[in-house]
Protein backbone atom coordinates (compact mmCIF):
# COMPACT_ATOMS: atom_id res chain seq x y z
CA UNK A 1 0.00 0.00 0.00
CA UNK A 2 1.55 3.33 -0.99
CA UNK A 3 1.29 6.42 1.17
CA UNK A 4 -1.45 8.11 -0.87
CA UNK A 5 -3.65 4.99 -0.73
CA UNK A 6 -2.98 4.70 2.97
CA UNK A 7 -3.99 8.32 3.63
CA UNK A 8 -7.09 7.93 1.47
CA UNK A 9 -7.99 4.72 3.30
CA UNK A 10 -7.59 6.45 6.66
CA UNK A 11 -9.76 9.33 5.50
CA UNK A 12 -12.45 6.85 4.48
CA UNK A 13 -12.29 5.28 7.95
CA UNK A 14 -10.94 2.01 6.53
CA UNK A 15 -10.11 -0.38 9.38
CA UNK A 16 -7.48 -2.24 7.34
CA UNK A 17 -5.70 1.00 6.46
CA UNK A 18 -5.54 1.94 10.13
CA UNK A 19 -4.20 -1.50 11.06
CA UNK A 20 -1.57 -1.19 8.32
CA UNK A 21 -0.58 2.26 9.62
CA UNK A 22 -0.19 1.01 13.19
CA UNK A 23 1.75 -2.11 12.25
CA UNK A 24 4.06 -0.13 9.97
CA UNK A 25 4.85 2.74 12.33
CA UNK A 26 4.28 1.35 15.84
CA UNK A 27 7.98 0.62 16.50
CA UNK A 28 9.12 4.07 15.34
CA UNK A 29 6.46 5.87 17.38
CA UNK A 30 6.99 3.67 20.45
CA UNK A 31 10.79 4.01 20.28
CA UNK A 32 10.53 7.80 19.99
CA UNK A 33 8.16 7.99 22.93
CA UNK A 34 10.18 5.66 25.17
CA UNK A 35 13.37 7.58 24.39
CA UNK A 36 11.81 10.90 25.42
CA UNK A 37 9.56 9.94 28.34
CA UNK A 38 12.05 7.31 29.59
CA UNK A 39 9.39 5.01 31.00
CA UNK A 40 7.92 1.84 29.45
CA UNK A 41 4.32 2.31 30.65
CA UNK A 42 4.15 5.99 29.75
CA UNK A 43 5.68 5.25 26.34
CA UNK A 44 2.88 2.81 25.51
CA UNK A 45 0.26 5.34 26.63
CA UNK A 46 1.83 8.17 24.62
CA UNK A 47 2.32 6.10 21.48
CA UNK A 48 -1.27 4.87 21.59
CA UNK A 49 -2.46 8.46 21.98
CA UNK A 50 -0.45 9.32 18.84
CA UNK A 51 -2.33 6.75 16.75
CA UNK A 52 -5.67 7.79 18.24
CA UNK A 53 -4.91 11.40 17.29
CA UNK A 54 -3.93 10.35 13.76
CA UNK A 55 -7.16 8.35 13.43
CA UNK A 56 -9.24 11.33 14.52
CA UNK A 57 -7.43 14.15 12.73
CA UNK A 58 -6.36 12.54 9.46
CA UNK A 59 -8.74 14.98 7.71
CA UNK A 60 -6.52 17.85 8.88
CA UNK A 61 -3.40 16.26 7.39
CA UNK A 62 -2.63 18.29 4.28
CA UNK A 63 -0.02 15.91 2.87
CA UNK A 64 2.65 18.61 2.69
CA UNK A 65 5.06 16.38 4.60
CA UNK A 66 5.51 12.63 4.75
CA UNK A 67 3.16 10.66 6.99
CA UNK A 68 6.15 9.48 9.06
CA UNK A 69 7.22 13.11 9.64
CA UNK A 70 3.71 13.94 10.87
CA UNK A 71 3.74 10.90 13.17
CA UNK A 72 7.13 11.87 14.61
CA UNK A 73 5.85 15.40 15.17
CA UNK A 74 2.80 14.18 17.08
CA UNK A 75 4.89 11.66 19.02
CA UNK A 76 7.42 14.29 20.16
CA UNK A 77 4.70 16.79 21.04
CA UNK A 78 2.75 14.22 23.04
CA UNK A 79 5.90 13.05 24.81
CA UNK A 80 6.84 16.61 25.77
CA UNK A 81 3.27 17.19 27.02
CA UNK A 82 3.65 14.19 29.30
CA UNK A 83 7.01 15.43 30.61
CA UNK A 84 5.46 18.84 31.33
CA UNK A 85 2.50 17.32 33.15
CA UNK A 86 4.88 15.07 35.10
CA UNK A 87 6.87 18.15 36.13
CA UNK A 88 3.78 20.08 37.18
CA UNK A 89 2.49 17.04 39.10
CA UNK A 90 5.80 16.93 40.95
CA UNK A 91 5.57 20.65 41.70
CA UNK A 92 1.97 20.58 42.92
CA UNK A 93 2.03 16.95 44.03
CA UNK A 94 0.32 17.50 47.35
CA UNK A 95 -2.63 19.41 45.91
CA UNK A 96 -2.99 17.05 42.98
CA UNK A 97 -2.99 14.05 45.28
CA UNK A 98 -5.90 15.65 47.14
CA UNK A 99 -7.94 16.37 44.04
CA UNK A 100 -6.57 13.90 41.46
CA UNK A 101 -7.73 10.36 40.84
CA UNK A 102 -5.06 8.96 43.15
CA UNK A 103 -3.04 7.17 40.45
CA UNK A 104 -0.10 9.56 40.49
CA UNK A 105 3.20 8.00 41.55
CA UNK A 106 4.38 9.23 44.94
CA UNK A 107 8.00 8.39 44.22
CA UNK A 108 10.71 9.54 41.83
CA UNK A 109 11.01 7.44 38.69
CA UNK A 110 14.09 5.18 38.83
CA UNK A 111 16.98 5.41 36.35
CA UNK A 112 15.85 4.50 32.88
CA UNK A 113 17.34 1.49 31.10
CA UNK A 114 16.62 1.73 27.39
CA UNK A 115 15.83 -1.81 26.18
CA UNK A 116 17.74 -1.28 22.92
CA UNK A 117 21.10 -0.51 24.57
CA UNK A 118 23.84 -3.13 24.63
CA UNK A 119 24.34 -4.70 28.06
CA UNK A 120 27.90 -3.44 28.55
CA UNK A 121 26.80 0.13 27.85
CA UNK A 122 23.69 0.12 30.06
CA UNK A 123 25.29 1.85 33.05
CA UNK A 124 26.75 4.68 30.99
CA UNK A 125 23.53 4.99 28.99
CA UNK A 126 21.50 5.34 32.20
CA UNK A 127 23.74 8.28 33.21
CA UNK A 128 23.39 9.79 29.76
CA UNK A 129 19.59 9.47 29.86
CA UNK A 130 19.59 11.22 33.23
CA UNK A 131 21.55 14.06 31.64
CA UNK A 132 19.33 14.15 28.53
CA UNK A 133 16.32 14.61 30.81
CA UNK A 134 17.86 17.91 31.97
CA UNK A 135 18.26 19.36 28.45
CA UNK A 136 15.94 22.08 27.10
CA UNK A 137 13.05 20.62 25.07
CA UNK A 138 14.33 21.47 21.56
CA UNK A 139 17.79 20.09 22.24
CA UNK A 140 16.28 16.98 23.83
CA UNK A 141 14.13 16.28 20.75
CA UNK A 142 16.93 16.88 18.25
CA UNK A 143 19.43 14.75 20.18
CA UNK A 144 16.96 11.91 20.81
CA UNK A 145 15.69 11.72 17.23
CA UNK A 146 19.24 11.72 15.89
CA UNK A 147 20.82 9.30 18.34
CA UNK A 148 17.96 6.91 19.06
CA UNK A 149 15.84 7.06 15.92
CA UNK A 150 18.81 7.58 13.58
CA UNK A 151 17.04 10.42 11.76
CA UNK A 152 19.18 12.69 9.58
CA UNK A 153 19.41 16.42 10.32
CA UNK A 154 17.22 16.99 7.26
CA UNK A 155 14.48 14.71 8.63
CA UNK A 156 14.75 16.25 12.10
CA UNK A 157 14.39 19.73 10.63
CA UNK A 158 11.13 18.62 8.93
CA UNK A 159 9.80 17.08 12.14
CA UNK A 160 10.67 20.15 14.19
CA UNK A 161 9.61 22.60 11.49
CA UNK A 162 12.97 24.33 11.39
CA UNK A 163 16.05 24.58 9.16
CA UNK A 164 18.99 22.16 8.92
CA UNK A 165 21.50 24.72 10.31
CA UNK A 166 19.16 25.26 13.28
CA UNK A 167 19.19 21.50 13.95
CA UNK A 168 22.99 21.46 13.68
CA UNK A 169 23.14 24.26 16.21
CA UNK A 170 20.71 22.44 18.52
CA UNK A 171 22.82 19.28 18.33
CA UNK A 172 26.01 21.22 19.05
CA UNK A 173 24.47 22.93 22.08
CA UNK A 174 22.93 19.65 23.28
CA UNK A 175 26.35 17.95 23.26
CA UNK A 176 27.95 20.92 25.04
CA UNK A 177 25.27 20.91 27.73
CA UNK A 178 25.48 17.14 28.17
CA UNK A 179 29.26 17.40 28.65
CA UNK A 180 28.75 20.11 31.29
CA UNK A 181 26.12 18.08 33.14
CA UNK A 182 28.19 14.89 33.05
CA UNK A 183 31.37 16.69 34.19
CA UNK A 184 29.47 18.27 37.07
CA UNK A 185 28.13 14.84 38.09
CA UNK A 186 31.61 13.30 37.90
CA UNK A 187 33.01 15.82 40.41
Amino acid at each position, binding site marked *: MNEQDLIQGLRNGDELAFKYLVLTYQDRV*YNTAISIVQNVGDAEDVSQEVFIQVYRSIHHFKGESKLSTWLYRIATTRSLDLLRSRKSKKRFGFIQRLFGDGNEPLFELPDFN*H*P*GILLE*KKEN*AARLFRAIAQLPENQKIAFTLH*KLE*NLSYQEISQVMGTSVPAVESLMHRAKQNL*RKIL*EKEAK
Partner: protein
Amino acid sequence: MKIESNKKVEEILSSLDGCQRVSAPDFYYTRLRARMEGRSGKSYNWILRPIYVVAALLLLLTVNTIVLLKGQNETSTTASDNLEVIQQSIAAEYSLNDNNSMYDLNQEK
Protein backbone atom coordinates in the same frame (compact mmCIF):
# COMPACT_ATOMS: atom_id res chain seq x y z
CA MET B 1 42.87 13.36 36.19
CA LYS B 2 41.20 15.85 33.81
CA ILE B 3 42.05 13.65 30.81
CA GLU B 4 40.55 10.62 32.54
CA SER B 5 37.38 12.55 33.35
CA ASN B 6 37.10 13.74 29.72
CA LYS B 7 37.58 10.19 28.53
CA LYS B 8 34.81 8.98 30.82
CA VAL B 9 32.46 11.74 29.62
CA GLU B 10 33.15 10.85 25.98
CA GLU B 11 32.54 7.20 26.81
CA ILE B 12 29.16 8.07 28.33
CA LEU B 13 28.26 10.29 25.39
CA SER B 14 28.97 7.49 22.95
CA SER B 15 26.99 4.92 24.94
CA LEU B 16 23.98 5.35 22.63
CA ASP B 17 26.01 4.40 19.54
CA GLY B 18 24.73 1.14 18.08
CA CYS B 19 21.51 1.42 20.02
CA GLN B 20 18.69 -0.64 18.50
CA ARG B 21 15.15 0.53 17.96
CA VAL B 22 12.79 -0.84 20.60
CA SER B 23 9.82 -2.81 19.31
CA ALA B 24 6.33 -2.01 20.50
CA PRO B 25 4.94 -4.48 23.08
CA ASP B 26 3.10 -7.62 21.99
CA PHE B 27 -0.56 -7.28 21.00
CA TYR B 28 -0.03 -3.55 20.62
CA TYR B 29 -2.72 -3.12 17.97
CA THR B 30 -5.26 -5.18 19.94
CA ARG B 31 -4.67 -3.07 23.03
CA LEU B 32 -4.89 0.12 21.01
CA ARG B 33 -8.26 -0.92 19.56
CA ALA B 34 -9.51 -1.86 23.03
CA ARG B 35 -8.49 1.56 24.29
CA MET B 36 -10.24 3.30 21.41
CA GLU B 37 -13.43 1.33 21.94
CA GLY B 38 -13.35 1.74 25.71
CA ARG B 39 -12.80 5.47 25.51
CA SER B 40 -16.31 6.37 24.34
CA GLY B 41 -17.82 4.65 27.38
CA LYS B 42 -15.42 6.34 29.74
CA SER B 43 -16.19 9.89 28.69
CA TYR B 44 -18.41 10.55 31.71
CA ASN B 45 -15.72 9.56 34.20
CA TRP B 46 -14.17 13.03 34.47
CA ILE B 47 -17.30 14.28 36.15
CA LEU B 48 -16.71 11.88 39.06
CA ARG B 49 -13.22 13.24 39.78
CA PRO B 50 -13.00 14.53 43.37
CA ILE B 51 -12.22 18.11 42.31
CA TYR B 52 -15.48 18.34 40.34
CA VAL B 53 -17.48 16.61 43.08
CA VAL B 54 -16.10 19.02 45.73
CA ALA B 55 -16.74 22.01 43.46
CA ALA B 56 -20.33 20.86 42.83
CA LEU B 57 -20.93 20.39 46.57
CA LEU B 58 -19.50 23.84 47.34
CA LEU B 59 -21.71 25.38 44.68
CA LEU B 60 -24.75 23.59 46.11
CA LEU B 61 -23.86 24.77 49.62
CA THR B 62 -23.42 28.38 48.43
CA VAL B 63 -26.75 28.36 46.59
CA ASN B 64 -28.46 26.86 49.67
CA THR B 65 -26.97 29.50 51.95
CA ILE B 66 -28.03 32.33 49.63
CA VAL B 67 -31.56 30.93 49.35
CA LEU B 68 -31.79 30.47 53.13
CA LEU B 69 -30.56 34.00 53.88
CA LYS B 70 -32.91 35.49 51.33
CA GLY B 71 -35.79 33.41 52.67
CA GLN B 72 -35.08 34.58 56.22
CA ASN B 73 -35.24 38.24 55.19
CA GLU B 74 -38.47 37.69 53.35
CA THR B 75 -39.95 35.85 56.35
CA SER B 76 -39.15 38.72 58.71
CA THR B 77 -40.64 41.22 56.25
CA THR B 78 -43.78 39.10 55.90
CA ALA B 79 -44.10 38.79 59.67
CA SER B 80 -43.97 42.53 60.16
CA ASP B 81 -46.52 42.93 57.34
CA ASN B 82 -48.82 40.41 59.05
CA LEU B 83 -48.54 42.26 62.34
CA GLU B 84 -49.57 45.48 60.66
CA VAL B 85 -52.61 43.79 59.10
CA ILE B 86 -53.68 42.38 62.47
CA GLN B 87 -53.23 45.78 64.09
CA GLN B 88 -55.31 47.41 61.37
CA SER B 89 -58.07 44.82 61.64
CA ILE B 90 -58.28 45.24 65.42
CA ALA B 91 -58.30 48.99 64.98
CA ALA B 92 -61.09 48.70 62.44
CA GLU B 93 -63.09 46.38 64.67
CA TYR B 94 -63.02 48.78 67.55
CA SER B 95 -63.40 51.84 65.28
CA LEU B 96 -60.11 53.15 66.48
CA ASN B 97 -59.26 54.47 63.09
CA ASP B 98 -62.42 56.45 62.77
CA ASN B 99 -61.11 59.96 62.82
CA ASN B 100 -64.49 61.41 61.82
CA SER B 101 -66.12 60.84 65.18
CA MET B 102 -66.18 64.30 66.57
CA TYR B 103 -67.09 64.75 70.12
CA ASP B 104 -69.05 67.87 70.70
CA LEU B 105 -68.13 68.65 74.21
CA ASN B 106 -70.65 71.49 74.43
CA GLN B 107 -73.59 69.38 73.35
CA GLU B 108 -75.95 68.36 76.06
CA LYS B 109 -77.35 64.89 76.07
